[in-house]
Structures are given as structure tokens and as C-alpha cells.
């Protein structure tokens, strides 16, 4: 039931919402979306280059989606994750959850993001605006902390 996509191109949130509404019928009461954007880091960043593990990225996203569907009453669920070069202001990841109830939609969307951050095989490398070699973005301890709330 979940729609999971890994793509180089940008995504269209309005089109994804329309698709979700059309597919899940008119008893959906709530749609929560999360869009993760490439930040300019106060002008220091020219772009992010996203590397991913083809095959595993999709498989892991499917697993995470399936886990969410087992925990909450979800009518429809979409995850789009981009790879390649992404400039500040552009979207990197898009999560949409439709449910009859808003609390379920909010929780499931947050769960999906916490798992994507820590489990989906994507890595960000910085392209600096000053032309110097950019670093690989380091994982945040706070993302592991965020994950903990779903595991108790």
C-alpha cells in the first residue's frame, strides 16, 4: 500500500497529495506531510550531493513504511527520497501520511522521519560555496535519541 520512491528529480507535494487523496478515497480525515529541505547554512553551502545504496535504499524504506503501517491506522503512505546534487531550498525527502485521525498521522510521519534518518542508506556530502573541498555530513547523536522513543 505504501508508495516508496528513490529518484534524482525533484518532487511535487501537491501532486503527491492529490494522488494520495484519489487512491485512499474520501474517508481520509488528515494528511500530514514532512518536507526535508537543503539548507544554505548561512550561504556557506553551494549544494549537497546525496549518495545512496541502490536497492537497499528502497528495501529499507519499504521496511520502515511497513513497520509504520503495523503501528498506526494508516490509509495511505508515501515516501520520496532524492539522490544526486541538491541545492539550498530544494527538497531532499518527502513523507506523506493519510489517516482518519490526526494524532496517528502526526506520529506515523515523525516515526518515519526518525527511522529514515537513521536507517535509510543515504549519505550527504557538502559542496562549499567557497569552492573548497566539502565534508561528509556527520550523523547527529540527537537522531539516535529521537529513535529511542519508538523503541521503548
Amino acid at each position, binding site marked *: 500500500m505504501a508508495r516508496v520512491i528513490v529518484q534524482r528529480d525533484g518532487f511535487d507535494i501537491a501532486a503527491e497529495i492529490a494522488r494520495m487523496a484519489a487512491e485512499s478515497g474520501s474517508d481520509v480525515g488528515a494528511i500530514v506531510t514532512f518536507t526535508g529541505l537543503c539548507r544554505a547554512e548561512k550561504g556557506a553551502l553551494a549544494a549537497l550531493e546525496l*549518495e545512496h545504496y541502490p536497492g537497499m535504499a528502497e*528495501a529499507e524504506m519499504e521496511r520502515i513504511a511497513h513497520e509504520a503501517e503495523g503501528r498506526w491506522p494508516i490509509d495511505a503512505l508515501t515516501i520520496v*527520497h532524492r539522490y544526486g546534487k541538491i541545492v539550498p531550498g530544494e527538497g531532499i525527502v518527502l513523507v506523506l501520511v493519510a489517516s482518519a485521525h490526526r494524532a496517528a498521522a502526526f506520529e506515523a510521519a515523525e516515526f518515519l522521519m526518525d527511522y529514515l534518518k537513521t536507517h535509510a*542508506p543515504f549519505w550527504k556530502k557538502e559542496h562549499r560555496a567557497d569552492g573548497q573541498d566539502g565534508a*561528509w555530513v556527520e*550523523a547527529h547523536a540527537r537522531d539516535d535519541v529521537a529513535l529511542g522513543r519508538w523503541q521503548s
Partner: protein
Amino acid sequence: MKLVYFAWVRERIGVPEEERDLPDSVHMVADLIEWLIGHGENYAYAFENAQAIRVAIDRQHVPHDAPIGNAKEIAFFPPMTGG
């Protein structure tokens, strides 16, 4: 055995993937890392903080004490930073 590398693990080792015949002494992921470290400075550099390296066997996350068994593909990479 197909070994694949991502992000700075890939950069440090210098290739995105390679085929390797593993010796019988390599049973679990940790053995494989130790064995690879013996193959050159690039491997030693990539695995200098081995505990931090994440591993997937046939595209599923596994801990370092996971048995390799009949794996077709083993991947090594840094903690993920997607999303």
C-alpha cells in the same frame, strides 16, 4: 563475495566495490573487517574506527557479530545522513 562501499568508506578504500574470496577463518562481520584491514593502508584508514562502521548483508542492516553465512553482498558505510 561481493563487497560494496559507500560515502567516505568508499573514498578511503578507493573502489566502490570488489569481489573477494574469503578465507575459512572469516565467520562473522567483525572477522571480515579485521581481514580487510590486513590488505593495505586504505583499508586500515577506512576501518580505523571500526565500531562506527555500519554493515549490511544482502541489503539488510546487521551488527558486527552477525554471521556471514551464504551472503552474496556485504556493504560497509558510515552512519547514514539521509532524510
